[in-house]
Each structure stands twice: as C-alpha cells, then as structure tokens.
C-alpha cells in the first residue's frame, strides 16, 4: 500500500506487485504517520463515565494492552438469555456476489 500525506493511497497502490525499497519506505512512513495521528487524537470509548476521551498514549502497544484488559471476560450476576434475535433468510444476487468475491481475492 502506498501512502500520501500519511493516508493510504489505495488507488495508486499495487495489489500484488513486489515492493521496491522506495515503496517500502513510503509504506513505513505512512504507517508511522497514521499511528501518530491516531494516538494524538486520543480515543472515545474507554471504560467508565467520561474516561478515555482525550487520553494520549505513547504507543499502540499500550492501547492494545488496555483493550485486552478491558475485554477480560466478565460474568454477569444474572442473565436470562443465551440466544438473541431471530434468523431471517435474505435473498441475494449470487451472480453479483460471486463477482465481488473474485475481486476481493486480489485485495489485501
């Protein structure tokens, strides 16, 4: 994937061609820029009332550790359901979907 201004430039990116050293550098720079942009922005959705918004982290690993800690399996004190929602059969355009699947094979 090539990057422009720190953002993925998918239109200009080859999907299967080998990466040249220049392309690799652009990729690494792009990823770094994107990560810093994400971290600088802080995040919404941290646990607890009001917590998290505006938090800053030095690395993605810190954020990842926090995400893991926050999803440690918690058991409810009581729950009176195991399955929710009913299954509905939805028709599809299978010809179109097959074509889409073919194209998705080439996308990383």
């Amino acid at each position: 994937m090539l990057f422009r201004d720190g953002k993925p430039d998918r239109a200009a990116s080859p999907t299967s061609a080998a990466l040249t050293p220049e392309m690799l550098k652009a990729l690494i720079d792009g990823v770094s820029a994107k990560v810093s942009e994400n971290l600088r922005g802080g995040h919404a959705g941290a646990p607890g009332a009001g917590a998290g918004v505006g938090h800053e982290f030095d690395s993605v690993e810190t954020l990842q550790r926090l995400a893991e800690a926050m999803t440690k399996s918690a058991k409810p004190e009581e729950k009176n359901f195991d399955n929710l929602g009913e299954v509905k059969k939805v028709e599809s355009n299978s010809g179109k979907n097959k074509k889409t699947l073919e194209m998705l094979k080439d996308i990383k």
Partner: protein
Amino acid sequence: MAENTLNPGVGVDVGTANLCVCRQHPDGTFAVRHYRNMLFEMEATEEANDLLSRSKYLYVKSEGRYYIVGEDALKLVNALGHGDIIRPMQDGLMNPNLKRAQHLLNYILEAVLGKPLAEGETLRFSVPGNPVDKPETNNLFHQMVLSEFFKRQGYSPKPINEALANLYSESPTMEVEGEPDYQLTGYSMSFGGGMANSCVALRGMSVVDFSTTKCGDFIDKQVSLVTGTPVARVIRAKERDLDLNNVDSSNPVMQALSIYYDEMIQRVVRNVGKELVKSSHSFDGALEVVVCGGTAMAPGFIERVKRALDAADLGFKIKGVHLSTSPFYSVSQGACLAALSDAEKGAQ
C-alpha cells in the same frame, strides 16, 4: 442458525442502534440475525425483582443493576411512560458515558453471534470511519476492544469500514466512456443510529472514507427536545409513520424529523466533496451511489439524497442513486462477503 448448512465466514454489523450477524448458505442466500442494541437500566430494587420475575423481559444483571435488553427495553420504557433508553454505543463507538459499556455490549453481542463454526472462523466486523465533525475522536480503541472480544470467542476477526461493506454488498460500478464499467467502484453511504458513514471506492479499495455524527439517535433526541415528546415515542413514530415524500404538516414530530433529516443529508454531501479534494483523487467517470442503513429506510429518503447530490459540488458525476437491496442488512452482508474471501485466502 443451522450451522451445518452455512459457509464459514461471518459478517457482523456492530451498529449503535442495531447488531446484525450474517452468514451465507451454500446456495448464496444469507442468514441474518438482528437485535436492537439498546438497554433500559433499573436499580435492583424489590419492585424491579417482582416486575422481572412476573414478566418475560430479557435482562442481564451486572454490578447490582438490571439492564433490560433490546426490543424489551423499548417496550418497557413506552409502557412505563418515563425513563430513557441507553445504548452501549454512542456515535458509532463504545459509549464513554456508560460504565462497563463494553461488557454490556459483549453480553448482547455474544448472544446474537453465537459460537464459531470452527475455531478461528474468519469474521469481519464493521467500524465507522473517523468523524470529520468530531476530530478529537477516532475509532482505534473501539476497534481494538471489539477485536479482542471476537478473538476470545474463538474467531479470527478483522475490521471493515461500514460504508465499504455496503459497497461490497451492492457492487456499484463507474461508467467511463469507451471503457468497460469499473466494478466495485462508487460512492457508498450508510445512515445508522450513531453516524453517517461515507466511502468512495475504486475497484473495491477505499479512496476516501469518513463519518459524520449527528445521525439517527441525535435526531431522535433533538426532536424529543423541541417537541416535548419522550425519545422512545419519537423512535416509534419515526419507524411507523415517517414519510419524507408526504410529511404530515399537522404533526410537529414529523415536521421536526423532516428538517433534521435534511440537515443530516446536507452535512454528509457537503463533506464528501471536501474530503475528495483533500485526498487529491478525481474520477473520470460517473459513479453509482448506494445508500443503506435504518435511517435511510424512510420513504422519500433517497429522493432527498438525490436532490442534495444534484445541488452539490462533488468533484464527480453521478450515474444513479439507489437504496441498497436490503438496506438494513447490507453492511453485515458485505462484511460476510469479505469474511468468506478471507476464509478462501486462508485455505489457499
């Protein structure tokens, strides 16, 4: 879902208002399970114990509080005539104002999703684009929390942009004179409970994606404030009676909804042109526009989108605008196609 008749690869639309889980049958049809992503919180008093033991409401008890889930939450609020619906998610992301939001979401999600068909089944879950009108927020943490949850359930998860998933489901094309149509190329819009998501894609790859806030739930709250109608009643009225082709001028709720819908559509359309200019991308052909989401299902919604797009400076031509074939499920269907593709790639 009858597990032995399904292809491995599951799509999950993790929406602010609704959760949809989609798998595909070998004949190409989809099996979709849907549940409202909402709660009604009650203190665990004796009265609440009595009410719940006498009723069939579905609930979970956590940290000394009851949370009535899904459609039952809406029914109970409407029956009581007071109280508010709360959501584990807000503006497309985990609700930062709700204590233990991620656990409450997980209890519901686990019961809608079920176990994987096999350990490590591929799964794609929808994530919103980063909001252009709330730049201090991004989706990274939300994405990580969901990914961890799905891994713990035994899946191999990957995120997919919500609007891109709709695009995969609808397969729009771009027409360029003298060339064959470009497949999986177009502009996808998804109007959900928390956010409106946009994605312009070229041959299945996102060129620009972003979201704007102030969508379904925000509109419900604003309409509630200006008309003095409880939110739960606004939701019911909107889902049953709103017709944007023929707005009841004697009904203040319908009038207010119509005005807020126009503003929401304008906000999205204004931003897509800006984002394309920023990205320096341009399109030589005419793009097909595909629209999905619960908020887009009101009669007359597509006509309003068409009018807004026609009047805007987008930086691309429009080939046509249409509502997705199954507007409520298309994000989960597109995510399912991506998961099926992941499974095929993994098997090779």
